[in-house]
């Protein structure tokens, strides 16, 4: 298979599946799931072929002209390079298993056709982002993932909260995307190109680049990856079905923002100021999200805060000038966070759509596979040594220390402690103790459609995805490196080993390992015992209602509500009443209305003021014809 056919298949298969499902299989029970799964399988198979057959150095690139405007050419191009390879592997691998899981999870849903068609259009869009070779094309697919996210959040559109959440996600993303579009245009007018390869070869030094370009391009990341201050949409987006939360709102789409930042960072488009902004907003959000996850009893919302926190980690890594580590964390995060969401889906499915953790409990014996997957991916996200998450998360903390950013290091350490706290709490509330509701009491393990993805993603990959970093370099000519295709590991391993080397020189490796273990033991130990005391309720809510309320409270949503109600609405009212009602309607139209009869008498009023819109339109057309006759004849 040539790279060109591979690229075409990667985009064509999901698009065809989506189109056929949407046109013919909307009501069918099995048509769309089978097609969608086949498309996801094709993507996985083709991308593995592509990655295993590629040496990992010379980028694969094909490009077509889309349309021409004068001298300006818009190109559609596909580029598989060192940054796209790990992303392609992660996305296609995680997505395939989430498709498998969805078949089990959505078995009792009446709108499976719509759901799977949505998943396929999402796959088309995300593969487009991964392989895009220029920013214009990225933007097109960027909007397409936004659309599919909107559509899938609103899957249960007859519930008001789901409809509102989808609208919120879409509108919040518009705010970020406006900045992103301006950034693309600015980059294009400044450098005359938006092609990633051309930008990278131009060897832009970050310090000579206008800060505004980086900051504006960052807006796209802030919207899509739900970064501060546009992070408000992600927790509401959990209104969608759980596989959607796992695939789109944890593993891939929100991480696409990080991927773009990595690509642009490799191109050197960020001025130091832009990197600093990214570092501090990322580290701040990491700490905030990690603590707020303790203030939610809904299992999915708690995990959503965890996603915010880890996206903050990735943003901070880019801000620290370590795009490789950011991409590494994105990849590891995709495995363990997808598993955590799939476990929550498995639990929710078993408890008949109960999402409140305080009403669960005691599921360890009833759902052993789910519990094992949750435990392993939980340890992975808490950075248990040699689990996948440890390689990346620990390295981000190390990077902050190596760079001498002690403030950011402190925030990230708080975030790491928060991770251990909320994972311990979740495990305690959901899997240990006794069942706190009838639903939890009658729960039983999910079927194989759901447990197989849990085993593959949770037990195998959340544990071992990072092992390719432990050995030295892969043997020359080897096609696999650990669990990854060797060509996909070049970029990640290079950045990791470089940082590891620097840290070893400064003697930071062992202290970091010790610190990580201390955080882990303290966090998990504290929550596992603390949350034992109040079965059926949240211990923090019982012991310290004020602190819990502060964590649960939606500070930023409230601030935006206040702004809209007290600023935006007031301005709109000013225009509505003063400009429209008073100036236009009162002083202008009413004056004419009163003036005409005074001049032309009551007859004019009777015949001209009919009140029927079509009459007025006819008068208007008649007037235009008269004017033309006048101007032609005279």
């Amino acid at each position, binding site marked *: 298979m040539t790279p060109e056919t591979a690229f075409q298949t990667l985009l064509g298969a999901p698009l065809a599946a989506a189109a056929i499902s949407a046109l013919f299989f909307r009501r069918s029970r099995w048509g769309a799931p089978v097609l969608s799964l086949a498309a996801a399988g094709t993507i996985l198979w083709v991308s593995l072929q592509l990655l295993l057959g590629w040496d990992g150095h010379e980028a694969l690139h094909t490009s077509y002209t889309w349309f021409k405007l004068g001298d300006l050419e818009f190109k559609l191009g596909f580029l598989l390079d060192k940054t796209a390879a790990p992303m392609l592997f992660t996305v296609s691998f995680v997505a395939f298993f989430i498709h498998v899981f969805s078949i089990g999870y959505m078995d009792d849903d009446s709108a499976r056709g719509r759901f799977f068609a949505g998943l396929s259009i999402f796959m088309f869009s995300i593969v487009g982002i991964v392989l895009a070779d220029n920013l214009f094309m990225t933007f097109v697919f960027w909007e397409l993932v936004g659309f599919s996210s909107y559509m899938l959040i609103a899957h249960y559109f007859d519930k008001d909260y789901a409809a509102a959440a989808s609208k919120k996600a879409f509108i919040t993303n518009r705010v970020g995307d406006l900045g992103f579009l301006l950034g693309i245009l600015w980059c294009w007018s400044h450098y005359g190109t938006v092609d990633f390869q051309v930008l990278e070869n131009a060897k832009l030094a970050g310090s000579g680049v206008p800060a505004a370009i980086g900051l504006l391009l960052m807006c796209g990341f802030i919207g899509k990856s739900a970064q501060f201050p546009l992070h408000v949409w992600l927790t509401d987006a959990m209104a969608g079905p759980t596989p959607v939360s796992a695939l789109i709102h944890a593993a891939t789409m929100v991480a696409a923002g990080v991927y773009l930042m990595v690509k642009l960072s490799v191109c050197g488009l960020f001025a130091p100021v832009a990197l600093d902004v990214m570092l501090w907003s990322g580290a701040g959000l990491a700490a905030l999200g990690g603590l707020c996850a303790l203030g939610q009893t809904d299992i999915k919302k708690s995990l959503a805060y965890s996603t915010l926190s880890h996206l903050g980690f990735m943003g901070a890594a880019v801000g620290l000038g370590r795009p490789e580590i950011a991409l590494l964390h994105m990849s590891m995060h995709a495995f363990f966070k997808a598993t955590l969401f799939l476990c929550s889906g498995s639990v929710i499915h078993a408890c008949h759509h109960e999402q409140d953790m305080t009403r669960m409990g005691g599921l360890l014996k009833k759902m052993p596979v789910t519990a094992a997957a949750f435990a392993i991916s939980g340890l992975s996200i808490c950075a248990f040594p040699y689990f996948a998450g440890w390689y990346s998360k620990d390295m981000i903390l190390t990077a902050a220390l190596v760079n001498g950013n002690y403030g950011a290091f402190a925030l990230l350490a708080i975030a790491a402690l928060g991770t251990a706290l909320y994972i311990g709490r979740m495990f305690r509330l959901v899997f240990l103790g006794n069942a706190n509701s009838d639903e939890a009491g009658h729960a039983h393990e999910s079927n194989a459609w759901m447990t197989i993805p849990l085993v593959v993603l949770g037990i195998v990959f959340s544990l071992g995805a990072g092992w390719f970093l432990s050995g030295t370099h892969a043997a020359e000519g080897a096609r696999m490196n650990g669990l990854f295709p060797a060509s996909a590991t070049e970029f990640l391993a290079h950045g990791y080993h470089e940082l590891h080397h620097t840290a070893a020189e400064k003697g930071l490796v062992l202290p970091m390992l010790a610190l990580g273990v201390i955080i882990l033991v303290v966090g998990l130990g504290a929550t596992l015992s603390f949350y034992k005391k109040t079965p059926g309720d949240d211990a923090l809510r019982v012991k310290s209602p004020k602190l819990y309320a502060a964590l649960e409270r939606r500070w930023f949503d409230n601030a935006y509500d206040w702004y809209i109600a007290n600023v935006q609405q007031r301005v709109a009212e000013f225009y509505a009443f003063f400009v429209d009602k008073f100036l236009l309607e009162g002083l202008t139209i009413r004056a004419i209305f009163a003036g005409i009869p005074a001049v032309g008498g009551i007859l004019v009023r009777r015949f001209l003021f009919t009140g*029927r819109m*079509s009459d007025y339109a006819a008068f208007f*057309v008649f007037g235009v014809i008269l004017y033309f006759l006048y101007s032609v004849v005279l």
Partner: protein
Amino acid sequence: MPVGILHHLVLAGVLFAIGLTGVLVRRNLIAVYMSLELMLTACTLGLVAFSKQNNAMDGNLFVFFIITVAAAEVAVGLALIVALFRKRGTVRSDELTSLKN
């Protein structure tokens, strides 16, 4: 028969006339609105035709902007119609006669 500027312009004129007739004779505001949009589209078709005739891009570019603005305008127009329906309970133009006298 080669398709030339004349064909494009006649097509644009016919579309415009159909739209105009719709605006004048239809009573349902949604239909009137669609007819209005048809008139707008006829005008943009004229722009494309002249752009092709002059072998220049500016007419085409203009059309891109018109399409963008028209999309925004449709959102506002439809919102107005919905608001009208909520307030008055009808979208038939002959029942909306508060401007009479």
